[in-house]
Structure formats: C-alpha cells, structure tokens
C-alpha cells in the first residue's frame, strides 16, 4: 500500500516534469513552424492572392465618423478611409497637398483659397468637388461641443459664436473653395490637416445622419467593409481611387488586442502582420529576430504626472516643485522606456517649434525636495493617492510600473503615496473631474503645433476638458491667446517660450518623458511609415 503511494507520487512528479519539458519543446517547434508559415504565406501572396494586412492594436475604435471622436484608435482607421484638404508630411507635420492640390493665403491671413483635385470620387460614387467641402464644413459648424469636440477645440466654436474662427466657407467654382476667417489663426492649415477633418460624402452623411459612423464614406484609398465591435474593422481597396497604383494592399483588418504581450505573441505566431504598441522591453528581441522588423514612431508626445492644482497640498507651488525634484525621471526613462525616450522638461517635445531649450529641468534631488516640503510646512511629508493608468499608452508603456518607481521616490522624501487605478474610461472621467491628487497621463500631438500642447493641456479655458490638472494662470492665458492669432512665426515662438517659463516655475505637472513609441511588423512588410500623430496612412504598404 505504502509502496504503491510512493510509486504513484513519483509517477505524478514524473508526469509534471514531462509536461513541463513538453511545453518547452513545443514552444520551440511552434516558433519554427510559424517562421515557415510566414514564408509560405509570403509566397502565395506574391502569386496573385489578395494582399491582406492584419494590423494589431491596443483597442477598438470608438466611432468611424472622425469628426465625432478624439481617440487615436478611431483615427487609425478613418485616416485611411477619409482624406483631408491638406496632408501632413510622411513622417512629420509639415503641410503638403491633399485633396487640395494648391492654395493661396491672403496677406492679412484671413482668406485661404484652395484649388481642389479634379476627378476624385467618394466610395459611394458621389463626385468630390467644392460643394462637398462646403457641405462638410457646414455640417460641422452647425454642431455642438459634445458632438464635434475637435471642431470646437481647433476653430474655437460653432456657427455664429464669438470664438468661432471660420466666418464663411464658399464654393467659388466647381473646384475652388474659399475660407474667410474672423481673425488670423496661425495653425489653420495644420488644423484642417488633422484626421477629424476628413471630407465625407455629403450624400452619405445626409442620408445616414448620426449613424454615419456605422458606414463611413470618404475618398480615401480604402473603403469601409465591416466592423465587428471590440474585435476587428475591415477596410478594402477602393478601385476608383484617384491616385494611380494606390493602395497596394487589397484589404486591411484592424484587430484589437489589448494586452501588449499578447499582441506581440500574435505577431510571432503569424496571426497579425503588424503590431502597434510594442513594449520597449521587447525591442531588443525583435531586432534580433530575422522574421521581424521594428518600427519607431517619431516622437511627438509627452507623458506626465499631473498634480491637481486645486487640491491641497498641491495648491502650493513649493509642494509641486518638491514633487518635481523628488522623482528620478532619468531612472524611469532608462528602466521602463529602455532608453527609447527622452526626459521631459517642458510640456511639449523639442521637435515642436517654439520649444524653449533654455529651461533646465528640475533635477533629481531628494534633499532639495525635502527642503521645499519643509518650507511648505510639510516637513513630515503627507499622504496622497497616486493614480496610474491601467492601460499601456504610446507615451507611457507601463503606467503601473512607473507609478511604483515614483511611489518609492516619494517615500524617500517622506511622502506616502498609494497607487490607485480605475478602468480607463472611469480613470479619465474622474481625473477630469479633479478627483485625483496626482495622476499619470500623457498627450500625443494632433498637428505638431505648440498650441496643441500648451493651450490644450494647460490653459484655464480647457479645465473640464484636457486640462486635467486644473492649472489656471491668467498670465499664461494671455500669452497663449496672443500666440494663437500671431501669424509671424518668430514672434509666435517667442510667446511660447515665455509661456513655458511660466509653466516651469509654477510646475503644474511633473513632466516625465517624450517617448518613441514602437511597432513591430513582419520582415517582408514594406512602405510602412509610422506617423508621429499616431494615425498612419497605409496606402503605400505592401508585402515583398
């Protein structure tokens, strides 16, 4: 009896060992097998089968009517279904022709005239012309801030409202459109190049009304096929696309795989061809894998720790400065961005014109932090909640981990921080309502303009929308408003530099990093150019 038990125990242990070893070996076999799969697929593709790109990303789109949304995952799709009057550069935010082949600007900066491409058709067969452009702008300017957030944010309001920059949009002839502005707007061209302002088919949106997002119709290289919520969105080649020879792919499927590691695994097993949001820690193994290639998205973002300026003790500037000295940003960048980021000093990245490189960041100096806390009457430290985002973001690959480092940094200067997190939508809502003491967040630029960082994120006007830190400085507000209508580039940059000095002194945030987001794709993928805004045009993508 006893012997039997010992034997069964040994047998059991042996089985475990076998299972373990089997698991190890099958893993190897799998990865080899997949390599072969990849090859055979590649071969069959070149022999005339439809070329399908499966693009794995972190989340599903919110809506495919681009004007109604603000999230990058929606724009990733609409960027390929719709086109804007002017385009950003392939990998920067310079202005290039789009649906408008050329344009002129009056000397006072108040009149823009666009000459449109001829022979462009929407996916539903409607002709693209000046009337279509006017119809789109009329639709948007008749909206409300809840409906068309970006229109309000970029053009200051709707219809007859005081802040609305656009006075009129008129069709001069079939292919000429004139915009008249109430006051000069320096980043006007950059604004209309943004994904939300993709021109939609007037016949389609008039027929569909609010449900236009369920069946979007634009002029882009791909047309919408189907949307399986929380799973995938499929778009396919638009045969009548106005640019000859494009797009090169027959079909693109956007698949939502929330977990970064799971998404990379899907790429390794050949389920997807391109993976967004790669953990920096995986970058070296991807570079070492001949079947894969690593893409770096040019950096145009900022990740920060926002301090809610209305909540004690963060209503005290000294405490905010102390927080800036307490946190070891360099160590965070080295460890959790694997060095693929630079330490942030200002609220906007250095690539944006108007960046003030004279400002020296708060150095990592726990002693100085303690002194400042003592000066603020908090020598014994205090307790706070430290909010960390639950999901990986392009500007913050692993919020929880970075929060743990900050928690330790803060403990070193006597501040007890409890890490708190919520489901992402709740997190944003609560932080927007000013319920957090300190929260991690970030921003990816929409159009590469300083206004899109400083005004959007830190002006008192945007409290309740993107100014989560409730920072409100009258002095800053005046500078930012002046800069908005300043058309002279040098003067405008000067204003932004002053603005950054004020922000640096008041320290409403702890700026953490400007990251270089990473993507990975199969080695045979060509023509993929990640765009700094996060919305990539896929018309040139092909398989070798």
């Amino acid at each position, binding site marked *: 009896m*006893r012997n039997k*038990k*010992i034997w069964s*125990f040994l047998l059991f242990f042996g089985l475990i060992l076998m299972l373990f070893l089997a698991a190890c070996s099958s893993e190897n076999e799998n990865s080899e097998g997949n390599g072969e799969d990849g090859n055979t697929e590649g071969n069959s593709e070149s022999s005339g089968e439809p070329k399908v790109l499966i693009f794995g990303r972190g989340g599903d789109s919110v809506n495919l009517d681009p004007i109604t949304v603000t999230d990058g995952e929606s724009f990733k799709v609409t960027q390929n279904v719709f086109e804007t009057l002017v385009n950003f550069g392939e990998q920067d935010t310079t202005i290039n022709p789009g649906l408008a082949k050329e344009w002129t600007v009056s000397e006072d900066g108040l009149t823009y005239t666009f000459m449109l491409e001829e022979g462009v058709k929407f996916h539903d067969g409607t002709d693209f012309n000046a009337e279509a452009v006017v119809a789109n702008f009329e639709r948007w300017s008749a909206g409300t801030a809840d409906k068309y957030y970006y229109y309000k944010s970029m053009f200051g309001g709707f219809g007859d409202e005081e802040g609305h920059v656009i006075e009129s949009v008129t069709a001069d002839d079939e292919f000429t459109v004139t915009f008249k502005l109430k006051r000069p707007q320096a980043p006007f061209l950059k604004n209309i190049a943004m994904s939300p302002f993709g021109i939609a088919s007037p016949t389609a949106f008039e027929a569909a009304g609010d449900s236009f997002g369920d069946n979007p119709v634009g002029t882009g290289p791909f047309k919408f096929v189907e949307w399986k919520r929380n799973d995938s969105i499929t778009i396919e080649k638009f045969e009548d696309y106005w640019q000859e020879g494009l797009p090169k792919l027959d079909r693109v499927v956007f698949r939502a795989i929330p977990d*970064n*590691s799971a998404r990379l695994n899907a790429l390794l097993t050949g389920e997807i061809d391109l993976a967004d949001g790669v*953990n920096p*820690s*995986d970058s*070296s*193994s991807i570079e070492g894998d001949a079947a894969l290639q690593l893409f770096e998205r040019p950096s145009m973002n900022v990740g920060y720790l926002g301090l809610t300026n209305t909540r004690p003790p963060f209503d005290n500037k000294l405490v905010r400065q102390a927080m800036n000295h307490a946190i*070891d940003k360099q*160590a*965070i960048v*080295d*460890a*959790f961005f694997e060095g693929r980021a630079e330490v942030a000093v200002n609220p906007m990245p250095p690539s944006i014109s108007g960046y003030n490189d004279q400002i020296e960041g708060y150095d990592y100096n726990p002693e100085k932090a303690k002194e400042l806390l003592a000066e603020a009457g908090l020598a014994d430290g205090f307790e706070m909640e430290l909010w960390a985002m*639950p999901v990986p973001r392009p500007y913050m690959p*692993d919020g*929880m*981990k970075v*929060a*743990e*480092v900050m*928690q*330790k940094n803060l*403990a070193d200067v006597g501040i007890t921080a*409890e*890490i708190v*997190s919520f489901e992402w939508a709740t997190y944003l809502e609560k932080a927007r309502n000013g319920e957090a003491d300190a929260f991690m967040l970030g921003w990816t630029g929409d159009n590469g303009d300083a206004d899109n960082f400083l005004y959007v994120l830190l002006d008192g006007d945007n409290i309740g929308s993107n100014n989560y830190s409730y920072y409100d400085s009258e002095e800053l507000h005046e500078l930012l408003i002046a800069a908005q209508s300043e058309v002279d580039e040098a003067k405008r940059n000067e204003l932004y530099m002053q603005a950054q000095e004020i922000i640096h002194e008041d320290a409403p945030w702890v700026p953490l990093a400007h990251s270089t987001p990473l993507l990975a794709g199969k080695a045979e993928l060509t023509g993929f150019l990640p765009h700094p805004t996060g919305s990539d045009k896929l018309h040139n993508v092909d398989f070798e």
Partner: protein
Amino acid sequence: MSNPDPKNLVPAEQEVVVEQEAGPWRDAWKNFRKNKIALVGSVIVFFFIFLAIFGTWIAPEGINDQKLTERLKAPSSQYWFGTDDFGRDIFSRVILGARISLGVGFFSVIGSVVVGSALGIIAGYYGKWVDTIISRIFDIMLAFPSILLAIAVVSVLGPSLVNALIAIAIINIPNFGRLIRSKVLTVKQEEYITSARAIGMKDFRILLSHILPNSLAPVIVAGTLAIASAIIEAAALGFLGLGAQAPAPEWGKMLADARNYLRNAPWTMIFPGVAIMLTVLGFNLMGDGLRDALDPKMKT
C-alpha cells in the same frame, strides 16, 4: 468510561466527549504518520509557515529595495532568484510573500469555517424553514463561479489585500456550511444527543459541546484543502490587480508583473510560480493525508 478517576469532578457527559475524542485523534495521528506522502506535504507546509514567520530575518533585502540599475539580472550568487524589473531581489520577495499568501489562506479559511459552521449547524440542527432558507442561500452562492463571485465582492469593496481575503472567505462559506450541515444531520440522530436532550440540556449547549466537536473532523480536512485553493484564489485576484497592491510581494501579483518579461527574464515568473505550486501542493498532500487519517471508513 471504564476507569473514571474518582477525583475527577468533571460532569459525566463531558467526560464522554473527551474519551471519544482522544481515541480517534490518536488513531488519526498514527495513520497520518504512516502516510509518507502526507508527511512530505506537511514538511512543505511547515517550511512555508516557517518562512512566513521568520521571513523578515531570512530575506537578505526588503520588499521594495529598488535598484533600477540592477534590473532583470539573472539568478546569481548575489541574487539567488535574480532581480525583477525594479531591480528588487526576487529571493527576498518570494520569502516575504509567504506571509501574505499563507496569511490570506489561513485567515480566509478560518473566516469561512467560523461563519459556514455557524450557519451549517443552525441549518442542520433546527431544520425546517431555517434550513430551507440557509441552504437555498448556499445554493445561490454556489451557483456562481467562485472566482467571479470573488471579483464581484472585491469590486464592491475596492481592491486591497484585506478585501481579497474577505472575498475569498465569503465564497468558501457555503462549502463549509453544507459540509457541517450534512454532518450535523447524522450526528443529531445519535443516541447521546437524544439523551442530552432528555436530561434537559439547552440547545445552545448541545450544539457547542456535542454536535460541533463531533462534526469537526471533515471540516479540518476540507479546511486544509481549502487553504490550498484560497492561496490560488488570492494569487488569481493579485494577478488581476484586485488583491495585494504594489509594492506588496504577493506571488500572484509578482506573476502579473513578470508577464511582460516572460521572454527575456523568465526567472521573474518561475520563482513566484514555483512558490505558489509548492505551497498548494503541500496543503493538498497534507489534506489528503488528513482525510485518510480522519476518515473512520478508511481504518483497516
């Protein structure tokens, strides 16, 4: 009963209990000792209990000694189990995590045994509508997948180690309740209960001094096995971010944190995983041994 000490002034009915208990317990220990596998289980369990109590003195480093320059180092003579992504010594964290996991295991099971036994005894002893109500509540609770119920409880209470412990205690209540109830149903038919009732003992006293002790053996077995599953449940909640919060070295949370480094630093995952496996294995082996030892039907 055969040779009662004349100086012993303990009332007769209690003596019966003592006599009846002493015999089976001694037999059980004899049986248990013979069962080598169960002994191996106990050794593992006591090893982890030792770590849980004295871990603070054994662990070379604290739970949150971050050294970001030393991150993800492979196991070496300096870091026996390697370091995690914060440059923390995994060996120390695994040792210090024993207190959390065993603590959650023990205390959640004690909680569910106490509440479950109370409800089970009441249901079994009083029967009728009391039994119906309590038993149906148990049925409803058992109809939920247990981990889902635990997640629901934690999301109501908010994620923390204590709330995870409470959640695990709650989901295990019906198991113990049913067990005790069925045992009570048989015990209360015994003649000594009838005689206790005949001499006018109060219900409460009968429950406490006769029914409870005589129904306890299966609970001990089930409790030991439940500790094993409680540890897994705690680890699962920790993995989902609903249990212990950073920087606590809870094993499940360590696994979750290690997920991203599976490919390039597997030791961050292996050691906490092995720790969970070993403790659970230990409790299961010990529990099986206890069942064999305490089950009168197994006596040969």
